[in-house]
């Protein structure tokens, strides 16, 4: 035990930052891999993260082969976490993280430093706000991010409005269109800047079509009108350059505007620790062990790249936990230390891949997103002469694609490329 600024520093094998689906799965995997000294730090008073407010079903179809609600999915992991008696600090916030893995944690009445052998980043993501997309107009009440409205309705019993417009067709916005309709609100329309929806097709069907809520594509909000409370929004169609076409502008009366305009991985700590970032994902650059450019710092879940299914968050985080445990057991050295890394480059039609490089020593899951919607194409993973081809009936930017890559394809060469043909 050492001292820093007169405050004690505690030694830990693994510290997991964040107690949502990623952090829970990672911490459990670390413990199961035989590393007992693991601590999870959670900002909220309860574990489970965003799942607690995602009360609709459809979670767990891959992981548990049944359709669960978010709270039920979380409860399964929380139960397993409790049974394994993993140390946890709730109501605790990480104030800083250094590149040599010193974690500064603040809880009520107490500040402490933890020197960790490995840190797993699992802080999740947050919503893009009105400010982030610069909608002009006045500043009345009644403008919410979709997730904030979801939190108020599902956890705090506060109905946020009666007559609703929604900007952005991301899944949270679609889910909230149905949720508010079920609670008696009138959802006027959903507006989407892009020429296609960014939500899952099933949510377009069961959240909009089922309740006759129109979706206007290539349309955006150009002005917010109201003093005190929102009175309505102006909307306009956009051209191919995504600029509003003035002649198409119209007024939509509403008392509430929900924004479902994207998620941003919450990586302040990651940047502070000097981790190399990927400008496309907004998360860390990692290898196939989910280790970042800083030795001993791992990243998984929505803080790494925004997922559409929690099942994949859990599976990815389990692997990150296993690799972090292996790193600690190997004396804080990467399992494939010294091995030349093969970089993976997104080619035609691919927006990003994850991981961004591999050691070539093991099979791994390559996650990716495409740049536009297509039908009947082939995703090709190429490493020199070797390749994997996966035929896809439907490709959509809103749906993450996962391809298993065997080590025989991943090894050798110095760059792999993924493209859509």
């Amino acid at each position, binding site marked *: 035990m050492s001292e820093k600024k007169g405050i004690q520093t505690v030694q830990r094998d693994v510290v997991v930052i964040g107690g949502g689906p990623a952090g829970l799965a990672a911490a459990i995997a670390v413990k199961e891999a035989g590393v007992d000294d693991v601590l999870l730090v959670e900002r909220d008073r309860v574990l489970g993260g965003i799942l607690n407010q995602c*009360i609709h079903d459809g979670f767990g179809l891959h992981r548990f082969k049944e359709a669960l609600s978010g709270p039920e999915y979380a409860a399964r992991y929380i139960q397993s976490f409790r049974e394994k008696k993993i140390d946890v600090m709730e109501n605790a916030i990480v104030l800083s993280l250094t590149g040599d893995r010193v974690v500064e944690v603040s809880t009520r009445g107490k500040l402490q430093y933890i020197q960790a052998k490995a840190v797993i980043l699992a802080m999740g993501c947050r919503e893009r706000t009105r400010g982030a997309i610069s909608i002009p107009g006045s500043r009345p009440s009644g403008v919410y991010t979709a997730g904030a409205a979801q939190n108020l309705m*599902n956890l705090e019993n506060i109905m946020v409005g009666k007559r609703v417009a929604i900007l952005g067709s991301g899944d949270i916005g679609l889910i909230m269109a149905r949720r508010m309709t079920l609670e008696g609100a009138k959802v006027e329309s959903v507006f989407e800047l892009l020429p296609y929806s960014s939500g899952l097709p099933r949510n377009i069907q*069961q959240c909009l079509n*089922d309740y006759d809520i129109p979706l206007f594509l290539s349309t955006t909000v150009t002005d917010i009108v109201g003093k005190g409370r929102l009175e309505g929004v102006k909307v306009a169609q956009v051209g191919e350059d995504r600029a509003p076409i003035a002649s198409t502008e119209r007024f939509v009366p509403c008392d509430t505007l929900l924004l479902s305009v994207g998620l941003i991985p919450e990586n302040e700590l990651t940047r502070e620790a000097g981790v190399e970032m990927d400008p496309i994902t907004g998360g860390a650059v990692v290898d196939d062990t989910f280790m970042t450019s800083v030795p001993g710092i791992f990243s998984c879940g929505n803080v790494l790249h925004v997922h559409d299914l929690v099942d994949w968050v859990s599976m990815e985080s389990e692997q990150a936990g296993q690799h972090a445990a292996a790193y600690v057991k190997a004396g804080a050295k990467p399992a494939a230390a010294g091995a030349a890394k093969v970089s993976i480059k997104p080619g035609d039609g691919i927006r990003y891949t994850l991981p961004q490089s591999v050691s070539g020593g093991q099979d791994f899951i390559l996650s990716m997103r495409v740049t536009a919607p297509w039908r009947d194409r082939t995703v090709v993973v190429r490493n020199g002469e070797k390749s994997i081809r996966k035929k896809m009936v439907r490709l959509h930017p809103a749906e993450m694609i996962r391809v298993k890559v065997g080590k025989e394809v991943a090894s050798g060469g110095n760059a792999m490329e993924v493209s859509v043909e």
Partner: protein
Amino acid sequence: MSTTKELTCVVCPNGCTIAVELGADGKILVDAEGKPAIKGSVCKRGDEWAKQEVENPMRTIASSVPVSGGDSLMASVRTNRPIPLGKVMAVMAEVRGRTVTAPVAIGDVIIANPAGTDTDIIATRNVAKAS
């Protein structure tokens, strides 16, 4: 005369586009071997869902009910089986007036047989008594 109808399956996040061939009576056509004209689903559940969707669309719904005396203000709830889409609002009318008392455990029946749907509204969150 037959018509092709495209459905978006809601069984899982795959969201398959399923094409069904409908006869003049609005029912799915069946070939000589008794196989229904359903194409595009990647799993069997999609075929069954498509059949149901043409006859009588079924959906699951979720909501939250206020809890008194609990360590959380609300308990989330859902239907334990799909209900007819046409009954969704009638079921919600019963859910909206409902409050429960802590403790609540996942799976507790909060409303039995809402709107005569022969399903249950069950809790999906554990809420302990406030300490």
